[in-house]
């Protein structure tokens, strides 16, 4: 890499903004990877819309830290990222993408709803916009999950596998909300989808401290190569 990474003085406020922003950026990037590969034109646009919502949320949150948004996105190494591990997992199949989007968005929507009354004016303003976007992400993913779970044998099997794989990664995303409230959103959708709710058990952690899966490095390499190779490139 031709450029050096930035160092950040992580005050508690900046750290909490980075956690939210990195969740949005990394999940937004993963979602954007469907562009050109989605099963239908309609879903292609739906996923691109959602990816753009998430990246827009990340930008607003980065700007509120006082650091340059591009530097935060492009000039940090994996251990400096504060996103939950669930955001960086590869997309897998469509069922995995939808199940993750549903589980994460359900937690995000609860968080944004609470944050609308936050004393931090930046957070309250971002929450007011993000909540509407996220509410739609929840609805879109939930409607798909119901149809995949209650669809064919194949789609049910894939949706259940995705849910079972993802469940241990949900501890990080519900740490900042009431997990019981999150389960109250998730459980009825799983029931309608005829999917078995995995048992509450051991949870993965580490993302907030910068201990990431092997996948984040590969994601960042692709996301950062251009600004790292051509510093200040503009078009």
């Amino acid at each position, binding site marked *: 890499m031709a450029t050096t990474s930035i160092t950040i003085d992580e005050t508690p406020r900046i750290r909490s903004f980075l956690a939210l922003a990195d969740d949005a950026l990394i999940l937004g990037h993963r979602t954007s990877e469907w562009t050109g590969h989605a*099963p*239908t*034109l*309609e*879903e292609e*646009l*739906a996923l691109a*819309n959602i990816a753009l919502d998430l990246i827009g949320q990340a930008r607003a949150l980065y700007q509120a830290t006082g650091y340059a948004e591009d530097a935060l996105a492009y000039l940090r190494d994996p251990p400096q990222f504060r996103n939950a591990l669930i955001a960086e997992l590869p997309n897998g199949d469509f069922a995995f993408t939808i199940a993750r989007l549903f589980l994460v968005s359900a937690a995000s929507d609860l968080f944004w709803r609470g944050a609308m009354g936050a004393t931090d004016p930046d957070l309250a303003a971002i929450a007011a916009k993000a909540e509407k976007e996220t509410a*739609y992400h929840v*609805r*879109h993913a939930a*409607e*798909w999950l119901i*149809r995949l779970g209650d669809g064919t044998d194949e789609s049910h099997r894939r949706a259940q596998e995705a849910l079972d794989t993802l469940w241990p990664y949900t501890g990080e995303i519900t740490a900042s909300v009431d997990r019981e409230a999150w389960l109250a959103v998730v459980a009825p959708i799983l029931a309608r989808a005829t999917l078995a709710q995995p048992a509450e058990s051991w949870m993965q952690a580490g993302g907030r401290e910068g201990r990431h899966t092997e996948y984040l490095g590969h994601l960042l390499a692709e996301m950062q190569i251009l600004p790292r190779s051509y510093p200040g490139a503009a078009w």
Partner: protein
Amino acid sequence: MAEGRTPLWEVFVRARNGLAHKHVGSVHAADAAMALQAARDVYTRRGEGLSLWVVPSNAIVASDPSDRGMLFEPTGSKIYRHPTFYEVPEDVGHM
């Protein structure tokens, strides 16, 4: 996806209060709820609307193109059906 599993829906958008819903295109979707979401995602990305309708395309009864002469040509000679056919006396002013 198979055409049979995701039939075609016609999409209508109402841009503002007081206007009629206008046909803007179509989407493929498994059912009404998914069709509404697809319509939102495909046709309202740039603030085009405040309200959406989706209608199963096969619910629309269309005129047969080969009937065009019978149905629409006779009206061509009825110029007196246009308001501009009549001269409005000056005294009437703007109507």
